[in-house]
């Protein structure tokens, strides 16, 4: 924009201490009434654009004391990205009230929940059937050597830690496996805001299809996290029923793309103990997934079909698009 030269240094007057009327008259005294009025118009414009903001916007936000105390830097971020205090505050409120269910508390699931706690999410259902093993301590968010020594259930150990460290959190620990027998309508609460799939046993495609068929029916967003044993650098996808492809669309896409690519039976029958992983890779995948969740709650950016892959060699990020299947038996009718 183009403004009179005398208005530019006056931007440094905006320190939150003096009311605009006082600043406008200071301008009028220095450069005349017309300059004062132009300064007022400029400030109005800058406020509408979200470039200047009232200093007590947080105190007047209606957010609870704890949220303001812990989330001031995040609210600054959201103000920058969303442009107005109203939108930033509304997004934080949606986060506080959201009900999140996470299937799978492996490295990625655990670090994702840890980051969601940082973002201010408070209400969780955590689903996993496994116990903490010694090798888990080398890459998990919530477990320490003691949990491994006593063989605690992952859900219970994580829920205990969260309740101790985040007194505002409400956590339900569901120690259960995710199979075709799982009664999803009993485990997934009615008021769920988002379902997260970080369960990769027997493999991520299998558990995603199970959850996606349920979520499409209920019109629930489903985040399929990335970073699993099949490829540590994969980034996940957000599934929004009726908007993005569903897990069946993804499964069909890949089975078609890979139809001529059929490995022989692997000579090593039990490959479970041989999975590799690095804590930093899990944290990266969890971070990218957490940003997808944040995008959903801020309404910033439309989720599209596709998947990304980080190549560890060079940190190159490959991505490819997946579209909805017009003939998909699960999601094509909505």
């Amino acid at each position, binding site marked *: 924009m183009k403004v009179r030269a005398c208005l530019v240094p006056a931007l440094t007057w905006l320190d939150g201490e003096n009311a605009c009327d006082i600043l406008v008259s200071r301008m009028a005294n220095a450069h005349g009434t017309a300059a004062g009025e132009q300064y007022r118009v400029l400030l109005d414009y800058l406020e509408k654009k979200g470039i200047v903001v009232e200093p007590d916007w947080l105190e007047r936000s209606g957010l609870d004391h704890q949220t303001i105390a812990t989330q001031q830097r995040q609210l600054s971020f959201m103000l920058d990205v969303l442009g107005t205090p109203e939108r930033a505050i509304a997004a934080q409120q949606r986060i506080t009230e959201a009900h999140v269910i996470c299937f799978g508390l492996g490295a990625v699931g655990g670090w994702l929940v840890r980051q969601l706690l940082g973002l201010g999410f408070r209400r969780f259902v955590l689903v996993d059937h496994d116990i903490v093993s010694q090798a888990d301590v080398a890459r998990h968010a919530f477990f320490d050597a003691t949990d491994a020594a006593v063989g605690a259930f992952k859900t219970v150990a994580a829920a205990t830690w969260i309740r101790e460290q985040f007194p505002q959190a409400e956590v339900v620990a569901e120690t259960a496996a995710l199979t075709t027998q799982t009664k999803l309508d009993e485990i997934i609460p009615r008021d769920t805001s988002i379902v997260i799939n970080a369960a990769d046993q027997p493999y991520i495609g299998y558990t995603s299809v199970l959850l996606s068929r349920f979520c499409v029916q209920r019109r629930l967003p489903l985040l399929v996290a990335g970073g699993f044993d099949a490829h540590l650098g994969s980034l996940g996808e957000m599934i929004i029923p009726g908007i993005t492809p569903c897990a069946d669309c993804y499964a069909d896409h890949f089975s078609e793309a890979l139809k001529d690519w059929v*490995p022989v039976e692997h000579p090593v029958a039990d490959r479970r103990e041989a999975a590799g992983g*690095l804590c930093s890779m899990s*944290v990266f995948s969890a971070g990218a997934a957490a940003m997808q969740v944040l995008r959903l709650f801020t309404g910033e950016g439309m989720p599209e079909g596709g998947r990304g892959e980080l190549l560890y060699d060079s940190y190159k990020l490959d*991505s490819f698009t997946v579209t909805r299947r017009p003939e998909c038996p699960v999601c094509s009718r909505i």
Partner: protein
Amino acid sequence: MINPSSRLRLRPSVAMVPMGGEQWQFFLGNTRRSRQYRLRQEFALALQQLDGQLTLMEVSNRTGADLEHFQALVHALHASCILEDDSFAQWAAQSPWRRVLNFLGDYIPSNDVQDAFARLSDTEVIVLGVGAVGSWAATELCQSGVGRLVLVDKDTVETSNLNRSLYTQSNVGQYKVDALAQRLQRINPQLVVRPLRQMMSDSDDLAKLLQDAGPASIVINCADSPSVDATSAMVDAACQRAHTAYVIAGGYNLHLSLIGMTVLPGKSACYHCGRLTLENLQGDELVGLRKLARPWRNIGNLAPLAAITASFAANEVIRVALSDSRIPPAMVNRRGEFNFLTSEMHFTSLPPRPECGCIS
């Protein structure tokens, strides 16, 4: 050494795929690397028998694959991380670090993984600044098997730190280095961790610390006060003198997460080389631009930004510590940006600058 009595197996993360004719693909799922071989039928069959139980001799007898040729083939596939020695597999499966060991096995042939992991455990990492990025990076390093950490920070935990760091409500008021050291010790009781409640603002102080630290040490700069530029210049001065590698953790700028440079003194571009190039790149845009003085500036930040920046910094420290040409540091002579809103990565090349004089 691979000999007729060796027991090897196809690595569990590798798929063996017939491509028609005598063509075979070996696809490494994690690295997305693949190798194609033309294999006569008996050799393809022999490889499919490599489950770690049978010796090469036994497999050769069963399938009719000529032993000498089979041994040479196995040698090549082991060097490409397609096969692994069964004694490695058994050892890794029993180790609490098996995830890390199997990860290393994607890049380093199985016979060399134990030595590589020992280099990682022996490395002392000096973490300057354990705020948001530093708390994540130190935790990731501890969980990756780095055996010795020095944590340097003078601050105490405040409530407003909790949204993005790994500290929690019960840590408020504690020194950051103390709270973090306690947590890391619970994760790995064998970790040697030294918390230093001080601000490292003088390159002489850091140089002294490096002198005591021994040769296998790496500095990771996660300190942003007064600015990342100021702390990086200080780190560079000390590390150039001590020939210690350092990683600049980066930071964040709106929706961008910066991935900083990895500097190997005398061998790669240093912080100042990078600064010179960045100044040139920005030159035209910034002519006549004046920054408003805003002392009350409170820049936005949140957990995933800090975590992702830290994860690249931790990757780089691990890669430097391994000192193995098969998995070299990836941020030498460049820096990167990860865009959270689009999940895109962008890199800027920052080559060594002759006028800097850091490489003689």
